[in-house]
């Protein structure tokens, strides 16, 4: 029982990383209706910008704020410059454009800041919490910030006119345009918000996994798994899914004898697929109903 509790806590703390990323993944999915493969690299690039600002001597929170703003603007620009011209291209072509963006960001970050591992500061400190070494103040801070972002997003989408307009633009672009919503700008706004959330996620994750151009690949993949598990249509589900992936991965590694440790990621993914068999739209996702 002691071991189980410990492993669940450890799983939650890795799960925070996935939850953070899953939230960003779902956000952009809501805005543009596809999965953005370059999301992790965008977050990584933002984190490098923050690191550079801190290296230049700015205080953490100033660097944090500047990075979020810069990322937001960059997200809007990426949409307007790169993705608007191909918005009518087939979906698979757009996915390949994401892969291209991935490659460009990864390689240029490597060229500018090289591939050595850098440490990234945390405002929360690394003091142990609950008297155990499994979860520290930084991880608790991450959980807090993730849940805070989730709450703000919920309020934004449910309680503001702009949030409503964004939801309308994503759900039904034609009708939204007819009632006077500028759908193109709503998409750009979605990109900006996703980039900003990704930047926050990156800055929270970097103290744990350390900063380097490839830091996000694994995180994005498990964030994606979490988002799908929770349901791509539900930000809250995505956060829950992210935590679940972390916990499942840890428990599988500890409790499944013989091959658990070597194949723990595989087991986690197989479990997720098994869940999807029962709930094909994720645990908290809405079943898409189409009119014939």
């Amino acid at each position, binding site marked *: 029982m002691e071991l189980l509790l410990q492993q669940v806590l450890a799983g939650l703390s890795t799960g925070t990383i996935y939850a953070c990323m899953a939230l960003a993944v779902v956000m952009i*999915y809501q805005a543009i209706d596809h*999965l953005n493969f370059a999301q992790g690299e965008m977050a990584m690039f933002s984190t490098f910008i923050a690191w550079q600002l801190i290296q230049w001597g700015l205080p953490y929170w100033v660097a944090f704020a500047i990075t979020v703003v810069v990322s937001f603007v960059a997200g809007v620009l990426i949409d307007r410059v*790169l993705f608007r*011209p*191909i918005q*009518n*291209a*087939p*979906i*698979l*072509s757009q*996915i*390949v*454009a994401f*892969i*291209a*963006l*991935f*490659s*460009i960001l*990864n*390689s*240029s970050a*490597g*060229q500018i800041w090289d591939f050595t591992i850098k440490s990234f500061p945390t405002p929360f400190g690394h003091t142990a919490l609950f008297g155990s070494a499994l979860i520290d103040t930084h991880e608790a801070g991450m959980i807090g910030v993730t849940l805070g972002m989730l709450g703000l997003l919920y309020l934004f989408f449910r309680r503001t006119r702009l949030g409503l307009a964004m939801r309308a633009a994503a759900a039904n672009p034609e009708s939204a345009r007819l009632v006077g919503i500028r759908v193109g700008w709503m998409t750009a706004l979605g990109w900006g918000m996703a980039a900003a959330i990704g930047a926050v996620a990156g800055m929270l994750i970097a103290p744990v996994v350390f900063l380097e151009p490839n830091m996000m690949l694994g995180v994005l*993949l498990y964030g*994606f*798994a979490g988002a*799908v598990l929770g349901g*791509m249509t539900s930000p809250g589900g995505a956060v829950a899914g992210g935590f679940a992936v972390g916990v499942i991965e840890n428990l599988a590694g500890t409790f499944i004898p013989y*091959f658990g440790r*070597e*194949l723990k*990621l*595989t087991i986690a*993914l*197989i479990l*997720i*697929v098994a869940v*999807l*068999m029962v709930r*094909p*739209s*994720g645990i908290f996702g809405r079943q898409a109903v189409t009119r*014939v």
Partner: protein
Amino acid sequence: MTAPSDEVAAKEGVARAPAPARAGSSAAVRDDRGHRLAILAAVIVAFLIPLFARDFLTFQLTQVMVYALAILGLNLLTGFNGQFSLGHSAFYGIGAYTTAIMMSRWGIPYFWTLPAAGAVCFAVGFLFGLPALRLQGLYLALATFALAIAMPQILKFQPLESFTGGVQGLVVDQPDPPFGLPIDADQWLYYFTLAVLLVMFAGAANLVRSRTGRAIMAIRDNPIAAAAMGINTALYKTLTFGVSALYTGIAGALGAIVVQFVAPDSFNFLLSISFLVGLVIGGVGSIPGCLVGGLFVLFVPNIAESVSTGLAGVIYGVILLIVIFVMPAGTAGFARIVFARLLRSPKPEGRSR
């Protein structure tokens, strides 16, 4: 995830499905003859290349054909049946390992390993197609992605090491040309791969044009209407998964023979991404496009690397973006537009637009 809907020909085929399919107009017949001539010319050129090219180029072109075959497998599933897969690296790996184990552990001649690799992959693909039935779009992408992530880990798995060679991988002997042919081993492999490629491409072209092929495409275009017309969607979808895996598995088997080496980490998720890029660049739902995809996947990263090692990823990404901007529907879609313009040009100017 739906494939592009500009496949007008495919839709017409579906609409005509109950009627006899041989009612093509004279234009279609002429078109068909043009196609045959083009294919014949391409085969002759392909046959002559290794007699004049350097050995390394021959080797690279053999790899291009291997990738083209793998991309064709993905195309059958994604382009013609509308199911998305990030897991084809796993089928490629299973095919490669089947061949490598048969050749290096059991001493079976290389040509017998291809049908075996195809059969194993067909079985795995068919079984994987069963859970995939319930999933669509991104959710299917995740399930296939799980397969891609699992494969290198399973291949490295300790208890299986006596078969798979673990992290070390397996070395495969390069086959010698048979019947005392006056060519070297690289050239022989080129011709062997070319022969397999031609058979497989012809098979795919015939499959797509058959009753079965129309059923497969009908499911892509509108699964509900297809089911209403009496098509067993579950059966066709799982069968397509199996056939798709068979193609990619045979490509993997050829790849193992050509490269003479298999190791777990060469069959990772990034290989699936390469196949996807090749598929889109070549043209989703186009069979000849797969060759263009193969060329792109093999040569463009090398070109990017040769321009600048540090910025290779940037150059690769920019090339990819330019291609997508210029040809949003891939090479095949681009070629279709160009041909349509060329054929229309003799008409009066005022009506051209």
